[in-house]
């Protein structure tokens, strides 16, 4: 029977071309949105690499416009003041631990870097943190250690902590600890002292990226020093502490600006902004699918009406109502398969040609299966009513239908 249906659909290819195009177009749009959705969901299940619970951010504005005349001298003063401020923050009984870092989680800032490694370009995200940063953010190290005060004593190499992805990228299956990462033009070598599980600064929906941390010392530094404090407050600390903390910091550095906010608040805002485009496209796709469904329903309805005589003939020749019903739905599935095969041929090029290399084959494949399931489900759903109508008509009436 399936061969008969394939033959019938193929011989009616002109009549079925519009349905095929409609199914193909809706599949491609649905696949794009599903891909983003599955990518987000996949990322959501990956380790974040840090904890944002009870972590607050103090963003410091040094008001540098006023010190441009003597930058060297002022940087020394600035570093000293930063150390004093960090000590003062740690002394608050409400604060469990505090540290300074350059790029805080869920902030809009990014710091990317890269170098040529064994003949290929390696790109990664870059950050600096003081000795307590890992403790404050509860960062998970899978090997080695985080920076200690001893690292600040001026060793011959720069200690770095990298994430697992960068470790794999640089050293493959070799143990990354103690390995030297040095660019050809670098005077100081970087040596890996620890491996982080991960550090997905942009939050749960963001993709896995290669990451490298360097030690920040709050001293005169070539690379610039961090202008953010992150602090983990004790359980039960309320928003009132924000004012108390800001007051203290302002009293110590009256010309500087301070903004204090919980990281959780930044997280909510970041995730919202990441989800908005997906939601908008999701709604558009939802409407598109409704339109496609109505279109399909109309086309199939017309198709069944046009074929009333054929349906009557099949009933006269021995088809049961159920067999006619199954044939209508099967034909629709075959037509869908034509459209979806073209769609699969198109979308499979993305993973094959590695057009978007940060999306894994699993995400591509899962999105494909979901999109296929939705389109097949939808077409079957659209075929149910016209199929049922086909079974309602009496064979004798159908044969004389005009």
């Amino acid at each position, binding site marked *: 029977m399936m061969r*008969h249906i394939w033959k*019938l659909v193929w011989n009616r290819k002109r009549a079925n071309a519009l349905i095929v195009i409609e199914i193909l177009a809706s599949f491609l749009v649905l696949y794009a949105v599903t891909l983003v959705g599955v990518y987000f969901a996949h990322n959501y299940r990956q380790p974040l690499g840090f904890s944002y619970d009870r972590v607050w951010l103090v963003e410091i504005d040094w008001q540098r416009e006023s010190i441009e005349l003597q930058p060297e001298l002022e940087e020394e003063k600035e570093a000293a003041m930063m150390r004093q401020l960090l000590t003062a923050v740690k002394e608050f009984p409400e604060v469990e631990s505090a540290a300074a870092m350059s790029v805080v989680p869920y902030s809009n800032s990014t710091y990317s870097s890269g170098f040529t490694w064994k003949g290929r370009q390696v790109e990664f995200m870059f950050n600096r943190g003081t000795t307590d940063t890992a403790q404050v953010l509860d960062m998970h190290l899978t090997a080695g250690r985080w920076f200690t005060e001893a690292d600040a004593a001026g060793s011959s190499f720069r200690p770095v902590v990298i994430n697992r992805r960068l470790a794999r990228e640089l050293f493959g299956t070799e143990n990354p600890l103690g390995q030297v990462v040095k660019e050809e033009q670098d005077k100081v070598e970087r040596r890996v002292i620890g491996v982080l599980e991960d550090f997905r600064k942009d939050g749960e929906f963001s993709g896995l990226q290669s990451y490298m941390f360097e030690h920040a010392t709050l001293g005169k530094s070539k690379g610039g020093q961090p202008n953010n404090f992150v602090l983990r407050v004790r359980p039960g600390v309320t928003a009132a502490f924000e004012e108390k903390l800001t007051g203290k910091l302002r009293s110590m550095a009256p010309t500087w600006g301070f903004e204090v906010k919980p990281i959780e608040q930044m997280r909510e805002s970041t995730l919202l902004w990441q989800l908005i485009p997906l939601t908008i496209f999701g709604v558009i796709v939802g409407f598109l699918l409704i339109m496609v469904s109505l279109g399909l329903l109309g086309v199939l309805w017309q198709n069944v009406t046009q074929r009333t005589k054929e349906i009557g003939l099949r009933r006269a*020749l*021995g088809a049961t*109502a159920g*067999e006619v019903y199954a044939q209508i739905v099967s034909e629709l599935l075959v037509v869908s398969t034509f459209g979806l095969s073209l769609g699969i041929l198109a979308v499979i090029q993305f993973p094959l040609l590695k057009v978007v290399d940060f999306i894994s084959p699993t995400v591509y494949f899962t999105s494909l299966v979901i999109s296929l399931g939705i389109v097949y489900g939808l077409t079957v759903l659209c075929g149910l009513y016209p199929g049922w109508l086909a079974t309602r008509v*009496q064979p*004798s009436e159908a044969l*004389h239908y005009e």
Partner: protein
Amino acid sequence: MIHLSNVEKVYRTDRIETVALSNINVRVEQGEFISIMGPSGSGKSTLLNVIGLLDVPTGGEVTLNGRLITSYGDRSLARVRNEEIGFIFQTFHLINDLSVVDNVEIPLLYRKMSGAERRKRALKALEQVGLSARVHHFPSQLSGGQQQRVAIARAIVGGPRILLADEPTGNLDSQMGDEVMSILKALNSLEQTTVVMVTHDQRQAEKTARIVRLFDGRQVN
């Protein structure tokens, strides 16, 4: 073989009641070739539809080989139509998107049968009607007479004991009509197939063993 007893068919709408058949009593024996005649609207096709289980009578009983068919459900009726009855229509009712041999195979699609067996039987049926050279043609590439022969091949492919023909020569010129009639006659005489034919052509009706005449839904003899 076929026994219609007090068969009645009334079409009812909210306003009108149309009596299509009234008090029809017909008995057709195995191997008979009968024709049903009558003017337009006399109920010929309705009677054929009732005999062919395509329509359900509103009164009376239809018995086929001693089985009371009027009590059968959709699945059982479909099986009887598929295995025991072959239909030939005035307008051929061929599916234009399928080749001749694919059209002939259709009744066998509703049986448990391999594709190879279906094809073998379809080719044999086409050979019987003299269309072996046209198996891969499409209906639109054939003449009216050839199309009707394809329809006859489709009707006989399943080996039915009854052939029901609704004005099989109605759309054909006299020469082609005679060809079709000779095929039906051969099937009747050589294979003992029972043939019930609706016609308004007295010349063709006279070639059959018996004529059942209808007028305004009633049997007149």
